[in-house]
């Protein structure tokens, strides 16, 4: 299945625009953790995961085909 991944802030590769949607092929019911490793991102660098607008608190959360998944490092502001 395919999911739509977006990386932000320091998680974007150099030269890549933050939030550029990217299709990633995962096994059926692949998890957030699978996506992070498919993207080649250090798991510890990912602090916040948002799946289809919902904050995901579990790395073993299975994804649905076509899910919009956003990955962020630790960020703050006001």
């Amino acid at each position: 299945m395919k999911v739509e991944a977006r990386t932000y802030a320091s998680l974007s590769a150099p030269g890549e625009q933050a939030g550029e949607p990217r299709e990633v092929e995962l096994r059926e019911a692949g998890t957030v953790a699978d996506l992070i490793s498919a993207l080649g991102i250090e798991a510890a660098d990912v602090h916040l995961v948002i799946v289809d607008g919902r904050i995901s608190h579990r790395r073993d959360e299975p994804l649905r085909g076509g899910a919009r998944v956003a990955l962020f490092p630790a960020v703050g502001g006001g």
Partner: protein
Amino acid sequence: MDRLLRVNMTDRTAKFEPIPSAYASRAGRWLTSSLVHDEVPATCHPLGPRNKVVFSPGFVTGTAAPTSSRISVGGKSPLTGGIKEANAGTGWGRRLARLGIRAVVVEGQPERDGGFWMLKIDAKGVSFEPADALTGKKLSEMVPGLAARYGGRDKVDVCAIGVAGEHKMGAAGVCFTDREGRATRYAGRGGLGAALGSKGLKAIVVDDSGAAEVPIADKAKFDQGRKKLAAALGEHAITKPKGALNAYGTAVLVNILNEAGGLPTRNFRSGRFEGATKIAGEAIFAGNKERVGKDVYNHPCSPGCIIGCSNTWHKRDGSEHTSCIEYESDWAFGANCGIDDLDQIAELNLLCNEYGLDTIEIGGTLAVAAEGGVWKFGDGKRAIELVREIADATPLGRILGNGALVTGRAFGVTRVPHVKGQNMPAYEPRAIKGIGMTYAVSTMGADHTSGYTIAPEILGVSGKLDPLNPQKTDLARNFQYATAFIDSTGHCLFIAFAILDIASGFEGVVEECAGVLGTDWTMNDVARIGKAVLDLELDFNRQAGFTAADDRLPEFMLHEKLPPHDGVWDVPDEEIDRVFD
């Protein structure tokens, strides 16, 4: 820190008084809210002679405590009619603290229009100078010259109101100089600039030459605390050097809130903005890099800040356009006005800084005006003209300058996202329930800085909660108590990201304060002090006539579904009423 300076604008006199013993261990927001509560009749007209504008540096402001140069400003709000505390990062309060002045109380009003005056405070005392020649100007044209006249930015910091304050507009903020002497740091919300304008006070220049160090009762305890805090700030991914705040600024939140469906767009019609990535902190970083030719990290707004979240946006030719485009301002003119062009957002931000306007209220007002047919969402050029019109004080400009609620009434708009007359900031309550509760009950009107529940609800700081879960009563209360304490210390609220996650950092803050004052405070005193502050503010608002009916979100949010989650505001009124019961 032992004196209170009372400035009477009726007869233009000033006198120093000892700090009343009841206030012996109060400072910052605790002291400004105490003075407003105890001295300002709650039913007075906020622009009349009985209102007062009060300034107070925090407990540790002026010391070596990191990130502690905040000044608290209080009064009865011309925008909400309730109590107001707004604070800013600036060397101004630091100089006041070093002069041993724990509070400045500006009271009275000239009986007839007596023009504008300014105040000069230094080690020798206080003097009034005529200030009519300073009026009607952009703050960037007026403030540096004024600072230069008194020895330059190394010697003085300036507090001033802009033309919006001169015209007594509800969206007028109080401006302070930043570390570079730019007139850009605001105690922005609630119209306190109008209250100063109503008293004919245009500016206050503070020169701390010759001042002694801020006395510290227990130096060992203070130093221990300060080091613990510095360690926490230096370690946490959000606050450390080149960490999230330093690299991307607060505007890094644009993409997060957009992904979470909580970024209010086009006057709170949607929780997602299709132009979010173009205006976010990452785009500011990338745009600056392209225009300046190197990575531009953010800078401290005020002396002693080791977080340094304040950004600068550059023009195409690499010259400075504006500082700082905060998340709130970026959102207010960007997503909320449907504008996805950073140069236009920067110009709107700059104009608000020039005219002395609160960016959140003005962005919200423009959005309501667009809803009322005054202009079209996304037309940045027209938005810029409208903000100029505020400075010209045309009839339309005066309506806009008085904020979103007044503008909604003038143009028949029922969808005004406000609480107690203050426009909501950049978090959608229908998608983030705890912040909605905070907006509802905050003594300030809709205000995210009253209790930043976004930390656990969205950012995964100090816990991980589901933003859509409406059970947030305790959260809303506890965050407001902790915040009222931090606002009294003189620290910037952004230390919260580190100290909510790293307990020793929070202990350090308490030890710093106890060290300065010579008290035996522990972590157990944080909520006690926070509650004491809130109780004063709640009591003032009750006396001013506010009831539970004012602690409500606007009606349209109860039935209008917000995409993408399609939720409505569903927190029961009884739960809201329990927050401070």
